[in-house]
Structures are given as structure tokens and as C-alpha cells.
């Protein structure tokens, strides 16, 4: 069969296709997003974006109970949102197989925390699979469905940034023909009220024991005997890093990494002189192995934070790194400027933060491209916690400190509003808050690479659908003061913020303007009229990458400017003019 270069995420989607999956749901989130984007390219899979991870998992549970093989995908923090259904889905079990793909982000390349999702498998008492490259990612998905159906359990498949976003060669196979299983009603197994749930918990514990026995013999877990002086237990990406750093060492590679195979671990431990666990983030294996009474070293040597790379493994275990960095004295002496991400030229979010900073308001922030409004020079955000927290934490600010009343603005993106902003806004109304909520409606989920959401009018498969209107939703939630503003119109935006934040009742401003990366219209670009420019640097406060300060002058980079015209409105000297002539 053909070998194809696939990322881990593409391979997971391919695995779902080959495993006969019929239904897939997810909410986007780096590094998991492409799983569903690729799943959607297979005609045989009904793939859809859910408004959040809890909804996605519940849909997957329903589809599996209905008899289809179902896949649900999310980033690590998504599992927090989906934790409620996960815990009880474990009791309910499946009909068609159910696989939950979770992509962790050790090192926080693109996340607000680096929680270790393996803990969720143990917490929910469901089996956990950890592939170590794209081939395994694909193969493990197929095995996950077999385990799911054989043991009547949801299965968690955990990836991480270095698996999801690394490409390697994969041998493809045909799609299996897996018919929809017949649906039969089964109250005692699926209606989780106390009398039915108690025996289900007993069943879950018995299932874990059976899975532990299975873990001893499955080829997913294997000992690779090499030199017996050093033995390392590892899974997922850490397996590759250990192989790179210690090619001579013996390895116990765990593919089914919860529940653990106790007998296999004991056999491995007995066969090597020194035993190590190499695992990123929490001492998940280490603590369980120590509880088996086995002497092993892990987190006393390796960090609890970030990724664990080959150099560190070699340095720690062999006492010397794999490679030494190239030293260049001149470079060591100076600083290397950082290149942080910035709001794009023409980004409709920019003017909102400029206005908020100018009015010195307390900004309860949220997660999306607009989180970049927290960085200088915009510097207009006070806190960011998790998706949806802007509105609810904003209400908390106001209730927690009466001095802040009339100054609190919650800022949230359109996708984030649909994800988990609605309940917060409902509560601002219910509990009689007076915060201003600004919904940055750029008509797309931009941060994760432009996915559709309930407000865009399209499904994941690109089919036209109902576009939910944010304004009427806010009104239905009980907000009386709802208005829409074009964020490119700075005076109108500033006036609206001033008025609405002062209102003694809940208010909403919808700042509506499509993401600049998706706006294909061509606008006339702007330049600086050097005669008029007083070099006051005020325009630099917008943090627009197209406006560049040279030694003694300011210029607009024509290759970056998209002609949004926001800078024109902040210049006090009318020094920013259309490249082709007069301003309107």
C-alpha cells in the first residue's frame, strides 16, 4: 500500500476513516484542530464543529450509543469543558465505539496552561492510548475502536504538539466496512440515576481490572531489550526523544498507558540495572510504578514543566549532551530581539483595545487572537483565564469591588461567545450587573486558523446553514442595551464605549468587521505625509506592524498596509494620507 507523509492529526483522521467512523465532532483548539478538518474531507464521515467541547463529546456519546463509531477531538483544556459528560460516559459505556482524541501542549506553544490530560483517563477510569508517531497515530485509532467495543468503554487517545504537528510516513489501508450496530433501549445501563449508576460503577472497576490484564499482553506495550545497564519506561513523544538520546538503552514502550501493565513493568525493572521514567509534565507513570513497590527515578531528575528534549535526557542520564550549541561571542553579548505574534495589519480588534486603553477601563479578557490586545503598545487587558471567563469574571470584578463599578468591560470573540459566553451574559442580567460586554465579531474563529462557528452561516463541510445572530441572542438573554459598531469607525466606537460602560445596566457592543485575513476587498493604502508628520509617535500606539519607526521618521510599509484607515483617525496632524491623494 501507498506510504504518505502525514501529520499526527492527519493520521488520526485517516485512522478514523479506515476504522469505519461515521460521526466526528470537535471544537477547534491547537494542536488538535486539523483532526476534524481532515476528517471532514472524507465523504463517509459526518464531521461537524460543535460550539464547545462538552457539546462535542455529548454528540459523540449519542452517536456511539446510536450504533456508529464516533470520534471526538479537542485540545487538553477542552477536556475540562467536556469533563462532566466524560466522567459519566465512562459508566454508560458504548454501543458503536467511542474515541476521544486529546492533544496536549507541553511547553505551551499555543495554550494558556500545560495540564497533563493523562490524569483524565485515570480520573474517568477509561483506557488511554499514546501514539509515538503518525503511523502509530493511525494504527492506534483503529485499535482504540476495538478496545472501546470489546471492553464497552470510551477510549482516550492522547497526542501532543510534537505528535500532532510532526509529519512522518504512514502506510495507508482501505476503509473497514463497519455497519451501524443495532440500537436497543437499555435503561439500567444508560439512565444514570443513583440506583442504576451504583452497579455501573462496580462494572467500571471490573472493566479496569480486565483492561489491566489486557495491557500485559497487548503488542501496544513492548519491551525493547538492548543494553541492560539503563532501562527507560516511556510513551508517546518521549519514546522518540529517549531513542534519540539513548540509542543503546533498553526501553519499555507503553502504547496503552492506562491502566498500566504491572507484571510487564516488574519484568522490565528486574531486567535492567538502573530504571528511569521519562515523561513530560506530571509523574503519571512514576507515581503508579512507585506504588507497585518498584525503585525508579523520574521527576527527581527531570522537570515537571515544559517539554523534555533529547539533549536534556542525554545530559541527565549519560552526563553529557547530544550536542553543544554553536557559540558566537558577539551574539551572546547582545540581545536577540523577540518576535512575538501581533495583531495583523487591518485587524478589526486593534481599534477596540486602543479605545479601551485610552479610556482607562478594567478589561476582563478572553481567549482568541484578541488576547494579543494585552501586549504593549495596546496593553489593554487585565486578566485572561479560560474561554468564556471574560463575561463572568467581569461580573465578579464588579461585585467584588464596588469601586470598579462602571469601569468593567468584558471583551470576547464571536466563537468564544458561542463557546461559553452566553451563560455568563445571562448571569450579568440575572444578577443585575452593569458591565459592558464587547463582542469582537470578526465572523470567524480566527485564532485557530479560521474555522466556521454557529455565527458564520457555514458548517465544517462547507454547507450553508443558519447564521445565528449575536444581537438578537443578547436581547433574548435580557440585555436591553445592545448595539453594533464598525470597529474601523474609531469615533463611533469610542463614543459607544463611553456611553455603554457608564450605563447602570448590562450592555453589549458588537464590534462587527470580518477578519482582515479573510477580507479580499482592495482598499487604497495610506502613506505618511512627511511634511505634516510631527513625529509625535502617537500612531505607534496602535501597534500596527505596517507602521514602522525609522531612526528619525515614521513610514508605512506598503507591503503590509491593507488600508483599514484606523491610523488616519488617531493622527492629530492629518499626516496620514491616501497613497493616491486626498482623504475622503
Amino acid at each position, binding site marked *: 500500500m501507498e506510504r504518505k507523509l502525514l501529520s499526527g492529526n492527519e493520521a488520526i483522521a485517516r485512522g478514523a476513516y479506515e476504522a469505519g467512523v461515521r460521526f466526528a465532532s470537535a471544537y477547534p483548539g491547537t494542536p488538535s484542530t486539523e483532526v476534524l478538518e481532515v476528517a471532514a474531507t472524507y465523504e463517509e464521515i459526518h464531521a461537524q464543529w460543535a460550539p464547545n467541547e462538552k457539546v462535542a463529546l455529548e454528540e459523540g456519546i449519542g452517536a456511539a450509543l446510536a450504533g456508529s463509531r464516533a470520534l471526538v477531538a479537542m485540545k487538553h483544556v477542552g477536556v475540562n469543558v467536556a469533563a462532566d459528560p466524560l466522567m459519566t460516559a465512562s459508566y454508560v459505556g458504548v454501543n458503536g465505539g467511542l474515541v476521544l482524541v486529546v492533544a496536549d501542549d507541553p511547553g505551551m506553544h499555543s495554550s494558556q496552561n500545560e495540564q497533563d490530560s493523562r490524569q483524565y483517563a485515570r480520573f474517568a477510569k477509561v483506557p488511554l492510548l499514546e501514539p509515538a508517531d503518525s503511523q502509530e497515530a493511525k494504527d492506534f485509532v483503529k485499535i482504540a475502536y476495538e478496545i472501546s467495543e470489546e471492553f464497552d468503554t470510551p477510549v482516550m487517545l492522547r497526542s501532543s504538539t510534537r505528535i500532532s504537528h510532526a509529519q512522518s*510516513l504512514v502506510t495507508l489501508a482501505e476503509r473497514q466496512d463497519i455497519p451501524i450496530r443495532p440500537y436497543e433501549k437499555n435503561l439500567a445501563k444508560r439512565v444514570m440515576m443513583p440506583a442504576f449508576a451504583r452497579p455501573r460503577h462496580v462494572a467500571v472497576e471490573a472493566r479496569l481490572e480486565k483492561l489491566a490484564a489486557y495491557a500485559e499482553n497487548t503488542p501496544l506495550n513492548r519491551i525493547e531489550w538492548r543494553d541492560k545497564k539503563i532501562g527507560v519506561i516511556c510513551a508517546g513523544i518521549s519514546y522518540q526523544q529517549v531513542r534519540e538520546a539513548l540509542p543503546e538503552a533498553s526501553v519499555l514502550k507503553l502504547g496503552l498507558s492506562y491502566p498500566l501493565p504491572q507484571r510487564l513493568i516488574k519484568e522490565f525493572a528486574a531486567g535492567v540495572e538502573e530504571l528511569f521514567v521519562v515523561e513530560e509534565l506530571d509523574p503519571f507513570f512514576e507515581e503508579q510504578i512507585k506504588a507497585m513497590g518498584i525503585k525508579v527515578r523520574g521527576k527527581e531528575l527531570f522537570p515537571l514543566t515544559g517539554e523534555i528534549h533529547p539533549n536534556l535526557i542525554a545530559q541527565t542520564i549519560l552526563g553529557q549532551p547530544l*550536542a553543544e550549541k554553536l557559540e558566537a561571542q558577539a551574539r551572546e553579548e547582545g*540581545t536577540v530581539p*523577540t*518576535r512575538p505574534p501581533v495583531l495583523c495589519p487591518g485587524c478589526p480588534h486593534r481599534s477596540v483595545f486602543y479605545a479601551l486603553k485610552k479610556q482607562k477601563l478594567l478589561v476582563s479578557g478572553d481567549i482568541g487572537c484578541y488576547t494579543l490586545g494585552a501586549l504593549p503598545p495596546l496593553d489593554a487587558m487585565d486578566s485572561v483565564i479560560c474561554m468564556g471567563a471574560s463575561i463572568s469574571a467581569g461580573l465578579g470584578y464588579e461585585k467584588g469591588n464596588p469601586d470598579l463599578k462602571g469601569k468593567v468591560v468584558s471583551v470576547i470573540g464571536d466563537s468564544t461567545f458561542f463557546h461559553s459566553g452566553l451563560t455568563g451574559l445571562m448571569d450579568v442580567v440575572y444578577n443585575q450587573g452593569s458591565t459592558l460586554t464587547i463582542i469582537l465579531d470578526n465572523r470567524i474563529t480566527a485564532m485557530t486558523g479560521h474555522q466556521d462557528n454557529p455565527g458564520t452561516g457555514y458548517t465544517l463541510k462547507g454547507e450553508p446553514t443558519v447564521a445565528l445572530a449575536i444581537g438578537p441572542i443578547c436581547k433574548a438573554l435580557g440585555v436591553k442595551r445592545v448595539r453594533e459598531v464598525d470597529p474601523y469607525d474609531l469615533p463611533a466606537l469610542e463614543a459607544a464605549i463611553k456611553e455603554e460602560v457608564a450605563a447602570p445596566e448590562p450592555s453589549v457592543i458588537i464590534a462587527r468587521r470580518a477578519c482582515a485575513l479573510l477580507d479580499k476587498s482592495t482598499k487604497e493604502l495610506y502613506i505618511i505625509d512627511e511634511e505634516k508628520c510631527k513625529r509625535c509617535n502617537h500612531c505607534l500606539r496602535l501597534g500596527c506592524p505596517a507602521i514602522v519607526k525609522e531612526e528619525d521618521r515614521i513610514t508605512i510599509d506598503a507591503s503590509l498596509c491593507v488600508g483599514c484607515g484606523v491610523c488616519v483617525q488617531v493622527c492629530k496632524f492629518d499626516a496620514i494620507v491616501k497613497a493616491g491623494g486626498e482623504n475622503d
Partner: protein
Amino acid sequence: MTKTTSILMGGVGGQGIVLASKLIAHVIQAHGKELKISEIHGMAQRGGSVLTYIRFGDEVASPIIEAGQADIVLASERLEAWRWLPYLRHGGTMICSTQIIKPMPVITGAQKYPENIMKVLEELAAEGKLGALYAINALEVARQCGEPKAANVALLGILAHCLEFPLESYLAALEALVPEKYLDVNKKTFMAGYEAVTKS
């Protein structure tokens, strides 16, 4: 088993590093090697630093490249060459576009763009710490060929001198991956990069 070859590509979000890495992957695959390509996405689209690791050989374990491990650093911008310099092994090859894209902290005046980058790289090459240094203004080369967006393809033309694969494999990769409409200009840009080395 032959040694794994490691290429680190660094650039700025929006510079088209993804196509460049696809082209290299195509060339490597055509020669039956194992390979791993690792990209950091996330907020790269928003003008941040972007980084791609390419590793190939008979067998590849880790998808990442450690400081001191890269055989080749290919940087599409001067400051990015500076940033990833420590990742080169002693005697490794630096391929660098001399183009400058100022990052936000430099634009706002909070940090200074280092002035001596090219001079220091040349000194390192003279000392032998760099096995080879190839520096061209890839953007300018691409512009002259007719498509500034193809700047990275000019750098690939240089890379072709540094790897063991024949020129035809690169042209085949361009044919396989670049849309018809842009194929000629990409080939022209690739050859301009390739010849920039042969001529100098």
C-alpha cells in the same frame, strides 16, 4: 546506518515556509528516505517567528532539532538567522536571506535590531565555525524573477547545493506542488538562487 540530516528553517509568519518545507519533503521522499517534519503552528500566522524542523535518513527518532544539532539552518530573514544560529553544529551551513523584517519590539523602539549580524556570520565562516555561509537577498532575487512571494524558493536553490539530491528532484517537486500558473516563475526563482552560488 547513515547519520540523520537535520535542517532547521526559520522565518516570519506569512513568509511561506510551509510550501518550502513541502518541497523539501517531496525531494527527500522521492529518494526513499525516512523523514520527520515538525512545525510549530499556533500564532505563527500573526507575524511571529516560525520554525520548521526537517530530519531525514535511514531512520529518524526525534522530530525536533536541538541546539548544536542542525547541519543546515535556512533562515528567510536576517534576525531569524541570528536567532537560530546556536542550533547549527560546528561546521554547519548557514543559508540566509539578508532581508530585514522588524519585529514589533523593534518597531516600538523597545528593543534594537542587531546591526552586525552579517559581519559576525562572515567572521564565523572565516574562522571555520560555519562550514559555509550563503547569504542573498532572497526577496530581491524573487522580485526580479517576478514573484516576491517565491523568496523561499530562491533559498531552496541554494539548499540544492548542500544536499545529496540531484537538481532534477527539486524541479520535479516544484512541478508536483506549485500550481501551473506560478510554476514558471517559481522555477526561474529557484534557478536564480541555484546560480547565485555557482556564479559566486
